[in-house]
């Protein structure tokens, strides 16, 4: 449920001609590897990688590498390498859990003459020198920045999961207020992390989300909390809750359970609960108070677990103004399933804690935050 770019870029559009784009409606026929790549008919699309890694001697890391595509226009433009039908945003974050440090970078580009884009033929999704390279089911991630970088070979252990019902993940009331949402919930990851000139050989697990849609959110939503959890019994959970203005939880909140064989089960809002436990972390830069300890309950799985983060500062507070501020970080899970102890790792994303996220209807004005730099 990574909606950052939606309210980012769509708000910038003076006349977001939604009609130019296709909406996510039931009955979409998924096909791989085609659906690993670009869907230019849809206004918004992203590929989202997170993961928990460690070196052989126990140095723990978390990472996030995200590629967003937001359509700017589908009107015919003069032929130029530099015309901008889409904007590509990318985020890169590294959590040096053992070192207690958090690093992140962002970039915005037009496709330009090969600067950013998605190419199904070569299997590449890239923004500058941050890229995903598909080779069959394997994906090679590479991202380089002035301070840190990573290079990871990912191998999926399970087939792609399609979330929601009938191939759509409904986000608010109304037809088309939904997305096509695909995940690879258990990827083994091997590779290197460069940090301040030092190289760390790492291994671990990663998670990939790929979502494409047009205008999925509704009014009244102020933010969300999203969890990806990889349990040590080889099962996974994706859970999100949408918070409403009045403090209640939107009924369109939902989740998915993936069993050890890769079979996915849709979880409706009533099927689980996500409950903050009162431990908060206050951001110095945005003054947002993020709940960083949660109780996760899934009665149907007899799962009761606490989720906490090993690194409190994992907020991506941008300085460019064209990205919202959010907390996205590595988490650890401990609890019981069917009375047996269970543990796991995962990623948590929390938005709308510094100010309400203007979800839903697009605005005619730029974000308040954007003029705030």
């Amino acid at each position, binding site marked *: 449920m990574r909606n950052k770019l939606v309210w980012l870029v769509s708000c910038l*559009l003076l006349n977001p001609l939604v009609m130019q784009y296709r909406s996510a409606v039931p009955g979409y026929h998924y096909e791989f590897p085609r659906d690993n790549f670009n869907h230019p008919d849809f206004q918004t699309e992203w590929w989202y990688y997170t993961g928990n890694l460690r070196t052989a001697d126990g140095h723990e890391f978390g990472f996030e590498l995200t590629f967003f595509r937001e359509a700017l226009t589908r009107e015919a433009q003069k032929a*130029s*390498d530099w015309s901008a039908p889409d904007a590509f945003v990318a985020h890169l974050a590294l959590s040096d859990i053992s070192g207690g440090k958090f690093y992140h970078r962002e970039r915005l*580009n*037009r496709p330009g003459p090969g*600067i950013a884009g998605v190419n199904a033929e070569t299997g590449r999704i890239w923004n500058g020198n941050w890229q995903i390279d598909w080779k069959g089911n394997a994906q090679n991630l*590479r991202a380089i920045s*002035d301070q840190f970088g990573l290079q990871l070979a990912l191998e999926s252990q399970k087939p792609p999961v399609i979330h929601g019902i009938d191939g759509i993940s409904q986000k608010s009331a109304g037809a088309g207020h939904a997305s096509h949402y695909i995940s690879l919930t258990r990827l083994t990851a091997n590779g290197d992390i460069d940090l301040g000139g030092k190289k760390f050989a790492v291994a671990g697990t990663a998670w990939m989300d790929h979502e494409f849609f047009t205008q999925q959110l509704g009014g009244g939503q102020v933010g969300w909390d999203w969890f990806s959890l990889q349990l040590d019994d080889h099962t996974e959970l994706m859970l999100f809750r949408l918070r409403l203005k009045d403090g209640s939880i939107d009924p369109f909140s939902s989740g998915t359970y993936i069993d050890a064989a890769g079979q996915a089960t849709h979880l409706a809002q009533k099927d689980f609960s996500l409950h903050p436990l009162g431990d908060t972390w206050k951001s110095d830069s945005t003054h947002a108070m993020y709940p960083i300890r949660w109780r996760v309950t899934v009665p149907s799985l007899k799962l009761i677990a606490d989720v906490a983060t090993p690194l409190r500062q994992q907020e991506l507070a941008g300085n460019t103004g064209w990205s919202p501020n959010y907390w996205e970080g590595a988490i650890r899970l401990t609890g019981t399933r069917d009375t047996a102890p269970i543990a796991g790792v995962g990623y948590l994303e929390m938005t709308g804690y510094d100010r309400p996220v203007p979800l839903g209807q697009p605005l005619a004005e730029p974000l308040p935050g954007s003029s705030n730099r």
Partner: protein
Amino acid sequence: MSRLTLFYRLILRPLFREPLRTALTVLAVALGVAVVLAIDLAGNAAAGSFRSSIETLMGDSDLEVTATGGLPDAVVGTLATLPYAIRVRPRIQDFVTVVATGQTVPLIAIDLIGESADQQIITVASGEEALKYPGNLDGVWLGSSLNAKAGSTIRLLINDHVRDYTVRGVFDDSAEGGAIVVMDIAVAQNELGRTGRVDSVLLKVPDSPPLAEWQSRLSGALPAGAMVRPVGSRTSENQRMLAAFRWNLRVLSYVALLVGGFLIYNTISVSVVRRRPEIGIVRALGASRRSVLAAFLAEAACFGFAGAVLGCALGRVLATGALKLLSATVQALYVSSRPGAIELTPASLVIALLIGVGMSVIAALPPASEAARVSPMEAMSRGQREYATRVHQGRDMLIALGLAAGGIICAVPPAIAGKPLFGYLSAILLIAASALAIPAVADGLLHTSAHGLQKIIGVEGLLASRSLIGSLRRTSVLVGALSTAIAMMTSVGIMVGSFRQTVTTWMNDQLQADLYLRPAGNPASDQHPTIPNELADQLAKLPGVAGLDRFRAYEFSYEGLPATLGAADFHAVQPFRKSAFLSGRSASDVYSDLQGNDAVVVSEPFAHKHHLRRGDSITLPLGDRRVPFHIVDVSYDYASEAGYVVMDRATLLQYLPDPDPSNLAIYVAPGFDLETVRAEVQKTIAGHDILIFSNRNLRAEAIRIFDRTFVITYALEAISIVVAVMGIAGALLALVVDRRREFGLLRFLGAATSQIRKLILVEAGLIGLLANLVGFVLGLALSFILIYVINKQSFGWTIQFHWPAAILVSSLAGVFLATILAGLYPARIAIRLNPIEVVHEE
């Protein structure tokens, strides 16, 4: 006796007694220093302007990637995806004219979206704004100094078209060195008609490995034609290109200083001669030779210091004017430039002071050491001792001949590191030779002419020539100062006149077409705005158009120096064009060699700079390739100092496929009326902002630009002449004071005041005449050095010698008149003297 007391008695007190002469000497030094400083400051500011117009919005970039004719867009993608932590900033640079004000400002196109997160560039414009209008191609961001408001519209002339653009934002341009217009690259490519290419890509690379390693790493990843260089390379290339021009200008500015040096020499000599008895007395009272030497050197240093201080202030004022002239020249001959700010740095002030004081002390050495040789006995010697009777004419003449021979020999060796050092040495030796020859020449001429003068002018002629001989050293120094200034005027006059005549002759051959068209964009010589090729096609089909030459020009860099790459449609113009080649071959033979081959003609300055000859091979970076070309000939060319490489249009299109020409030349078919064809052309290009020049207009325009480029040389000459004439006025004042008894005596002997005035004016006139004579001969010699050595070695132009008779005669006459006028005030002083007092003074 303390040195200070000595200094005060011997030096300061007498100076205060003659405030006007002291002031004139100080002013002469001041002007000399001011000219040197002004040329230096203006040169720096003019050179600095390349930095600000080309190297704007560079951020913290370390490297730049360029290619002749621009880089293919794909290079940006390649660079952006390299696995290095580099920042990639593509650029298109051009110039636009703000229609409302006529101001031409740099246009910098950047990747507004990709660079919006760039902390270095973010002040300019925001990605949001660019994202808001993805399909609109009319947004510009303006520097605050253009005084436009965001949201308003601004009318701009780009290439050959005028359009209204929406001002999307205004940014603080104070750090950018002046007004600029910023566009997104997508918009700029469309507006400039340069789809598919960017001019350069700026790169910020990590601190390690070293820059050179990054350069080779990145070169390896890019096409062969792409050049990876540290940023500022173009500035230094431009500065290298301008070096010869600035160097010569600087040398010219030192002439005024040299003239000032003559005058200091004269002033100190006068001091020494006048104060011989005092020197004798202080020596008798125990002052050492060294103290006396020091006192007179200190006098010179005082003049130098006061002059330099004044000169610094004056230089700053002159620099403003010099900068205007200089930047016009730079713009016309070299690169688009905006004058930078004139920066009076402490370093340049210190240098000006050192130059002023140093020059004065050196000039004062001979008379001061003469003072040091005065024996205490002379304290008692009565009577007026004539002004330095010790002139070793014969010995000096021999030395002069030796120096002149040395000067001629020095004209032979080639340039050292592109600088005609031997040429300058040759000029210096010739100036020195003439200075040493002047006493003998003046003595001989005045002796032989004295009675003739008496017959023509009257007794004043006799008296004047006799008194000039009597104070031969003073006469020689004054003639030396003025003749140096005149020689410079004459030599530069002959050189410029010859150059002008050569250019005119060349243009007559070169410019055979009847109409010339170019876009009404920036006319700077390194800018090549284009005309749509379809328009050229239409023009070619017009009735009465017998031939159409499509000339396309690109700026490129060859072995670290900028030059122009051009292509002409030789097939279309073979019957018309008549360029002249160094080999002497006919134009049509050379044109035949060019067609269908990887062959080029290079211009003489280009061949000179890069030591190329007919038959050599030259590898040119073209787009993304490097291609070897055969040089079929070297052409005479006076259009560009940077030089031309010209190939056939079809050849160029193979490598750089953009068909739009930069210039068009139309040949009218016989039997058709030029004006009718012109009207047709005018009709066809309606809606495009294209300038049409008739053959005559274009020549006039070329000559106008030519003349403008030499205005600064004329200004420098004028200042040297002013310094020399001021020196003569000062020297005549001294002369009046020194010879007051003689004037008084003449009154006793029956001379009328008018005769005294006439005597002084005749002396001034004789000095002027001698200086004109010596200056003209020296100037003629120097003009040969200038034309055949210094110019040839600095710029590579072959110039045919030509007498600019009218200009020479009028300027020589003008200087002569000025010299006589310089005698007016001293003459007035002489008339006012009381003969009784001065005759009885002992």
